[in-house]
């Protein structure tokens, strides 16, 4: 059969985000896939070198639209490490709750993308609605729905409003009450398995070799989670599990996502119970004068898509000297995706890509 070169994206219904893949196909089968990023390059890392430590803070979140919060977290962690700032314990709890809410929100958003990709529009609508309920919580806590600009060096930007704990619990209960509906309509749906089972298989060895983290690795049975390996914020203050599955296919990855959401909700309930009182912010030095001592830091956290790292260098000045993000979508969207697509059907390209949770703005930055 004749080989064809097929351009998939950036303008394509099955493509989420400004990203494209060049496919070598023979009939419906993919022989080779070449990821083609660069449509969303905004030069954040370079831009940050020209801005003061605090002016970067409203910007880092914009690197990832889906889950801006873990970006704020790594930036704050790195700045705190370089500047030797302490974070009050209550702020650590608030950060953790906030990050877990963000994880649930991000996973729901991913679920929307994935379900609508497969044609499960009902579930997609539910996921979008439930994400919106979480955005309502963010709006109340931070004043913003998408870009919260909330975790800043030294703690968090504002304390919980009155009665906020109860509203978190209420919202999460109302979302949690729909889990049986999600299960019967989607996760336990035979059709879902038919579309996702054995699709986009990545073995553990392959995932490890190519820098896969997050669901990609956990779906191969490896409980690799930065929150567990290198606990930050308050992740070591309450017990929680790392959900894993064995098969390494799209189906397993989405199931890991599902279990993770439930685990996150349980974790939030525990954190809310254990949350101490006190301050939530240790004042940073005057932003116009703030110089951070010379040094370099690498910090990492577990974003909803995998390991998110930040390498930050200060040469003792008012701006960062060098910023580099290690974003999970980078290996997932380039190497892992190229590998997973080989042998797949054209109709599964979007399916596999979203199951790998590729977020284009993270790749380009």
């Amino acid at each position, binding site marked *: 059969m004749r080989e064809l070169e097929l351009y998939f994206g950036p303008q394509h219904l099955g493509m989420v985000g400004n990203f494209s893949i060049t496919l070598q196909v023979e009939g419906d089968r993919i022989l080779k896939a070449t990821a083609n990023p660069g449509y969303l390059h905004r030069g954040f890392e370079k831009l940050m070198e020209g801005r003061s430590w605090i002016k970067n803070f409203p910007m880092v979140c914009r690197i990832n639209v889906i889950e801006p919060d873990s970006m704020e977290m790594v930036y704050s962690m790195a700045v705190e490490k370089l500047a030797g700032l302490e974070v009050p314990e209550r702020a650590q709890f608030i950060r953790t709750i906030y990050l877990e809410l963000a994880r649930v929100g991000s996973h729901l958003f991913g679920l929307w993308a994935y379900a609508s990709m497969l044609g499960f529009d009902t579930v997609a609508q539910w996921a979008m609605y439930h994400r919106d309920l979480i955005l*309502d919580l963010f709006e109340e806590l931070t004043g*913003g729905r998408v870009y919260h600009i909330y975790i800043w060096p030294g703690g968090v930007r*504002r304390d919980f409003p009155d009665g906020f704990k109860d509203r978190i619990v209420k919202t999460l209960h109302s979302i949690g009450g729909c889990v049986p509906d999600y*299960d019967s309509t989607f996760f336990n*749906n035979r059709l879902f398995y038919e579309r996702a089972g054995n699709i986009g298989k990545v073995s553990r060895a392959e995932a490890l070799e190519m820098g896969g983290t997050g669901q990609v690795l956990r779906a191969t049975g490896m409980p690799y989670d930065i929150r567990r390996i290198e606990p930050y914020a308050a992740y070591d203050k309450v017990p929680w599990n790392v959900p894993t599955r064995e098969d390494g296919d799209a189906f397993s990855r989405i199931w890991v996502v599902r279990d993770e959401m439930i685990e996150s909700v349980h974790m939030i309930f525990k954190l809310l119970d254990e949350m101490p009182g006190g301050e939530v912010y240790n004042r940073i030095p*005057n932003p116009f004068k703030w110089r951070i001592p010379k040094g370099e830091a690498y910090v990492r956290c577990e974003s909803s898509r995998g390991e998110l790292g930040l390498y930050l260098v200060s040469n003792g000045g008012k701006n960062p000297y060098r910023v580099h993000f290690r974003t999970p979508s980078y290996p997932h969207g380039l190497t892992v995706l190229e590998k997973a697509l080989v042998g797949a059907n054209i109709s599964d390209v979007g399916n596999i890509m979203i199951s790998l949770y590729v977020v284009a703005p993270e790749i380009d930055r």
Partner: protein
Amino acid sequence: MGKLSLFGPFSAIKFLFRKPKTLRFPFEQKETAVRYRGFHLNDWNTCTGCGNCADICPNEAIIMEEHPEIETTPGEKNERPRLDYGRCCFCGLCVDICPAGSLRLSRDYLHIHFDNATFTVTPGDDSTDDKVFLPEDQYSILKASLVHRRKDYDGFSPDINFSLFDPDRVQMPEIPPSERKMSFIEQITGYNHEEAVREAERCLECGLCEDACPAHMKISDYIGAIYDGRPDESLRKIYEDNPIPSICGRLCMKHCEDACSLRLRGESLAIRWLKRYTADTINNFKETLEQQPASPTGRKVAIVGAGPGGLSSAYFLRLMGYDVVVFDELSGGGGMIRVGPPRYRLPEESIDKDVAYIASLGVEFRFNTRIGRDMEFEELLAEYDAVYIGIGNTVSRSTGVQNSEKCLLALDYLEQNKTDRKTVVTSSIIVIGGGNVAMDVARESLRLQNIQYPGRDTIVNTVSLEDWDELPATEEEINEAREEGIIFNPAWGPREVLLDESGNIRGLLCMKVKSVFDDEGRFSPTFYEDRNMVIEGTMIIEAIGQGPDFSFIPKKLMEKIEFTERRKIRVDENGMTTLPGVFAGGDIVNINLDAVTAIADAKIASEGINTWLSG
């Protein structure tokens, strides 16, 4: 994982019979959260135009726009922030940096308008703008825009606990009242390096202070240099406008701190103490400043009075290359600064440090030389190309009440106590006056009592016409005096000094003050004649004000000098009096009676003399 099923999904059919979750906008609306970060609000009444919002904005969405209709006062510029919503990312950093707390975000975010020029806007708020901000019943979501907004709809607001500036100043270490009142030990011990850097860090560099400083010192720069750990650079910046930092660093009236934007919701920056830190940290001014006078002009300038004004004009003129001679009747430099402020506020070594540096530039000081006594004023005019008069207010006024000739006068008293022959005080002293000089006299008296009568009960009373809220002394001085145990009798006026049989003072008869100022704000005290009080005391010092002594100027020249209606010498924009070649500044020209104003005058006059002599 449950059992995979093909029929399970049909359970979702039940949702067909439920109410939809989607809001039918705009007929159904969701209220934004209380903390919502929407469009800006700015209270123009509290906004000072400091521009910190524009400086912090990561997107340069804020520019400061001038509004000539706003009257600029010390601590307020006539600028207000203008927002470009094409750039704004609603991060709210501007809210958290705003020292005034005037800038905040509202809960509205919709902008519907046919004119894209409305996208940039100078935000006001409901307190100042009724046209844009409408009550809920007149507001329509269909017209929601930056020119049609809802009243009482504040969102993300400033919170001092989360501000990006530090409202609390680094406490200045000082000797506690119980200890300091026993001797003339300097009360303020000064910042150490770490404290000074920490305090300097608080400066937001908005420059409101620089506009308020009479001498327009480059405050942001010299404080920035302290923060950078470079006191030498700091000193150079200070010396551009002020050649007496050791003095000013101790007793400047700090108009700058009254204008500091941090004062609005916290404590103003300790600008004066930071200047003092620089002046005290650097031992050798000459080596650090490396200043050289310009090539000699061959012209000579005489300066009458070695006070702050005289010292400053000597410095500025010497740097311009003039031969400068300073005449003063005292034995050292400093003028009234040397006489007035007691040692615990300003040790003489600090004055001498500043004077010595100016002398090292080649300025000639002729101390113990009183013009009019040791040398005639006309000789000066003949010998020198220009004369600067900076004599200050050197004569204490008396109340003139009955037997007031038995009282001591403040300046005589303070001056004598600077010598080895200190006044022998009594154990019960009354000070008449409520200004800073009265505070100096009272607190000095207390110290003399404690030294001369150790362990005995002593008392110092002050009597002032002004009530607590009107006392002319600074709040700081009043508080420190009270901490040390000075008794205040505000709103009482002296009526008669009471004497005993042998003619010694036994007390002061006072009457209650009705009002101090008349309707036009002029000093014109009225009393309740029938409400009297006797304050007991065996020594009374009058500290009700000072005036200048022009007796050294011959009558026929004096007639040519014009005075203003407030009895100050009239000078032109170059600091020149109506007598050609004679310049003046400081207390005899200005209503502000303080050192930094005298420095500012001296700077103007120095430029004036330079223009006069070169033109």
